[in-house]
């Protein structure tokens, strides 16, 4: 009896422990996602913006003793881009004097008008191509009494008038303006090609897919492009999604914050689909989608 008891104790004491094994939660998961970033956009000149108001003519308006020099524009988009290249005060010279197709006029005393030089661009396959320079005049002068010097008054009419100026840079000298209409420069309008995508950063590239960690709050930025140049998003709306948390279903310039707490079943990838409207074409709906692969840290053998 005692021998049996001793044998039993010995047997219990020598039972070997089993070895721990790391678990392999997803042995047959889908192959790794190979994200395809968008092609790199070419260089965009600094300060470039999409033109929504187009130059029409230089305008000289006289009311009593005050003559105002301004620029008439029309609210329309010709598919061109522009940027400010210089702003000049009355009488100040500019490196761009003589380069504007509409010239830079002068006051009655011969001083050059104040205003702003803009450089116009068209978007081609090779990038942004400068096509012309235009001067937007923005100045005024008050005609002094006859006793004061006013060599070449802008107008002899005391009544208020408003008429486009005659010619380009030759209008220096402020001769009495002849009603005339300056045609726009020969810029061929390019209808912008719009596209939309989703990025993970405000200035990041758009992505077709992304891997994210379970439980991590991720920000998705709906973005839009006109001829591959970023344009402002007027509004976006989330069409379909499967996150466990979303910050909003609609928005404008702010991103969508989303979070997944559950893991997808085997072979399932989730996606976010957006409906996007831009400032460039407010009535044109763009769709954007990003595929999401939710992952979680796990042990491997």
């Amino acid at each position, binding site marked *: 009896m005692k021998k049996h008891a001793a044998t039993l104790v010995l047997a219990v*004491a020598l039972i070997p422990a089993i070895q721990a094994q*790391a678990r392999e939660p997803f042995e047959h998961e889908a192959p790794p996602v190979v*994200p395809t970033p968008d092609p790199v956009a070419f260089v965009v000149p600094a300060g470039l913006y999409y033109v929504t108001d187009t130059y029409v003519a230089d305008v000289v308006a006289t009311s009593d003793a005050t003559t105002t020099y301004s620029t008439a524009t029309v609210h329309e988009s010709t598919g061109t881009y522009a940027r400010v290249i210089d702003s000049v005060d009355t009488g100040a010279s500019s490196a761009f004097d003589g380069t504007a197709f509409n010239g830079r006029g002068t006051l009655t005393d011969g001083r050059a008008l104040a205003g702003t030089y803009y450089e116009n661009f068209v978007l081609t396959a090779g990038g942004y191509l400068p096509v012309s320079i235009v001067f937007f005049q923005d100045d005024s002068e008050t005609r002094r009494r006859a006793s004061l010097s006013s060599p070449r008054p802008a107008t002899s009419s005391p009544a208020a008038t408003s008429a486009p100026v005659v010619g380009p840079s030759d209008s220096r000298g402020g001769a009495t303006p002849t009603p005339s209409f300056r045609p726009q420069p020969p810029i061929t309008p390019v209808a912008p090609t719009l596209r939309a995508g989703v990025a*993970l950063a405000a200035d990041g590239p758009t992505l077709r897919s992304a*891997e994210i960690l379970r439980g991590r709050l991720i920000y998705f930025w709906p973005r839009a492009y006109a001829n591959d140049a970023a344009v402002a998003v007027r509004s976006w709306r989330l069409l379909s999604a499967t996150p466990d948390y979303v910050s909003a279903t609609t928005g404008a310039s702010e991103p969508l914050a989303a979070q997944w707490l559950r893991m997808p079943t085997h072979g399932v990838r989730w996606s976010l689909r957006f409906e996007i409207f831009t400032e460039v074409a407010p009535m044109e709906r763009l769709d954007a989608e990003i595929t999401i692969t939710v992952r*979680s*840290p*796990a042990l491997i*053998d």
Partner: protein
Amino acid sequence: MIHEDGGTAAVTTLVMLPLLLVVLAGALEFGALRAVAYRVTAAADLATLVAVNDQDQTELERTGTLRLAANAADTARDYFARNMYATAPALAASVTEIAASADIASFPTAPAIDPHTGTRYERPTVRLIASVPVKTPGFAVIFMPAVTTITIRAASSPR
């Protein structure tokens, strides 16, 4: 015929008792060693999981792919030491020393081959191999080393 064997059993027990005690001490120490090994292995597992959870946000925004943070190995080493504090009394070296001497490697991109083990990783991986000296006074009773070094290994990746 009736035989009285009570005396024989007593003598047998007296002779076998030292051997039984030695075997029992060894078994108990072996069990304790296994328990420490489990705890240290869990510390290593959790350390690599924490390191994998720390991803390179810039790379994610640029490419949409998960990539380990540049300091993933340091993170794993730090948390390996932290996770071993509860087991420190059973260890024959300080947790800091053990963590510092651990072989920790991060493979930020995949696929990658571990030059130490030859393992191929299909995901960004943090791998930890450490030799942990454990106090085993019970083994000293049976003329075995009083310190037993165990080797543990852990590896994690986002899956």
